[in-house]
């Protein structure tokens, strides 16, 4: 199976690899997937308290090229968005942008889950109720 140019590009030059301080009040951390399933994503957002915008996003991913590309793309999209706007990111947007084949759709679902998990972590830390999220099939 050949990879799309965009997957290859994110794999070769991943954006926003790294770690934010998860102890900080304005940092939300989402850790999704499982080592047994062959992919684990950790996605973090840092929210600017004054503007409510996501000022930084970082990821680390254990997984195939498509999983790495999906999380790299997600961090790019997150920066500059409000938390509510970030919630609207749909896995199918990632599928479309990266031209993921059907067997790799679960990578995009995982990225969406990671975004939502990070947002929920941020909400809980800041006294907001946890969002109940619909489960997408992996």
């Amino acid at each position, binding site marked *: 199976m050949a990879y799309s140019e965009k997957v290859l590009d994110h794999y070769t030059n991943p954006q926003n690899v790294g770690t934010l301080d998860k102890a900080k009040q304005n940092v939300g951390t989402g850790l999704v997937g499982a080592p047994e399933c*062959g992919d684990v994503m950790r996605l973090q957002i840092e929210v600017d308290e004054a503007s409510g915008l996501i000022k930084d996003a970082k990821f680390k991913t254990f997984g195939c090229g498509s999983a790495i590309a999906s999380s790299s793309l997600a961090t790019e999209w997150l920066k500059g968005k409000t938390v509510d706007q970030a919630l609207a990111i749909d896995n199918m947007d990632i599928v479309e942008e990266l031209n993921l084949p059907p067997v790799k759709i679960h990578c995009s679902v995982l990225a969406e889950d990671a975004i939502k998990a990070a947002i929920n972590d941020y909400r809980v830390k800041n006294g907001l109720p946890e969002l109940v999220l619909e489960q997408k099939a992996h």
Partner: protein
Amino acid sequence: MELKLPIYLDNNATTPMDPRVLEAMLPYFVEKFGNAASRNHSFGWVAEEAVDYAREQVAKLINADPKEIIFTSGATESDNLALKGVYEMYSSKGNHIITCTTEHKAVLDTCKHLEKQGAEITYLEVQADGLVDLNELEKAIKPETILIAIMYGNNEIGVIQPVKEISKIARKHGVLFFTDGTQAVGKIPVDVQADGIDLMAFSGHKMYGPKGVGALYVRRKNPRVKVTAQMDGGGHERGMRSGTLNVPSLVGFGKACEICMNEMESEAKRLSKMRDRLENALMQLEESYRNGNKEHRLPHTANISFKYVEGEGLMMGFNKDIAVSSGSACTSASLEPSYVLKALGLGDDLAHSSLRFGLGRFTTDEQIDYTIKAVTDTVNKLREMSPLWEMFKEGVDINAIEWAHH
């Protein structure tokens, strides 16, 4: 010597054809095109003579009699013919077959098929190093047992089963012994007499011959073994496999066997030296694990898990330049990691993190140097990107985390 890319290190999947093999085959397409079963004219005689010669070359490589070689379309067909053919032929004696969990799918799925027909199959677990436990094997034998089917060398981890000991147990209990020799024949000395093999499947394209051609060795003496044909027709191959013989490919298969016969010893030495160098260099990486028994294995195969990086992601770092294979689920449609590695008791995480290197006749030292560097660099790069590596480095117990399985 200038390094030519891409590098092929997936010789357990298939081997390139040796140019000497192609040369031997060429006259048999256009000029000498006869049907080996045409007994009444020179076109047929020429083809028959070529097939007879190939049969001798093939038989010689495994120390068999040419009459004991049944030509087939490859090892999958040979596996099917051996298992189904013995099951049908010996049904009055019993219905029980013993095999093991690390066999190739051509054996395992054929066994599953036979189960539906009324066979009872014992799937022996292997030990952590990939070898079958001989005591367990002997214990599994019962009065209904007609066949033991244990492979010679494993395609994923290269482990060589104790074939001589297995055949002794089979003999002692009057049970036939079939082995899938696909990865072993032509790579290491395989001797059906010394090894006590009753039936053996093997294939042309794993030993620098053409694809679509293989053989089933069927013992004719002590004991005389018979299999029920699975392909009916003109009664070719002593009635055990009908179908017009693929003369050019058989000529190539014969030539490939002859070359292996002559060069196997020096080639195995050369390859195991290169393989060890590759393996030792990659085992220098922290948290890398060799899969399978280190002593009893094929000279050209290495299988290593690089913990905390995922196999397909890892291959992507260099698969433009280097062809290897992974036990990662992402490379399979099923999303299940390698059942062979799991049978060794590896956790899914290590099975997902594995690479298989299959060296071959045309592998060079320069290619090995290049591969060591590319794999090392990619492992390091991906670990920097891996949340699991970060946790490991911080001393977090990854197994203690409640992962959301999906």
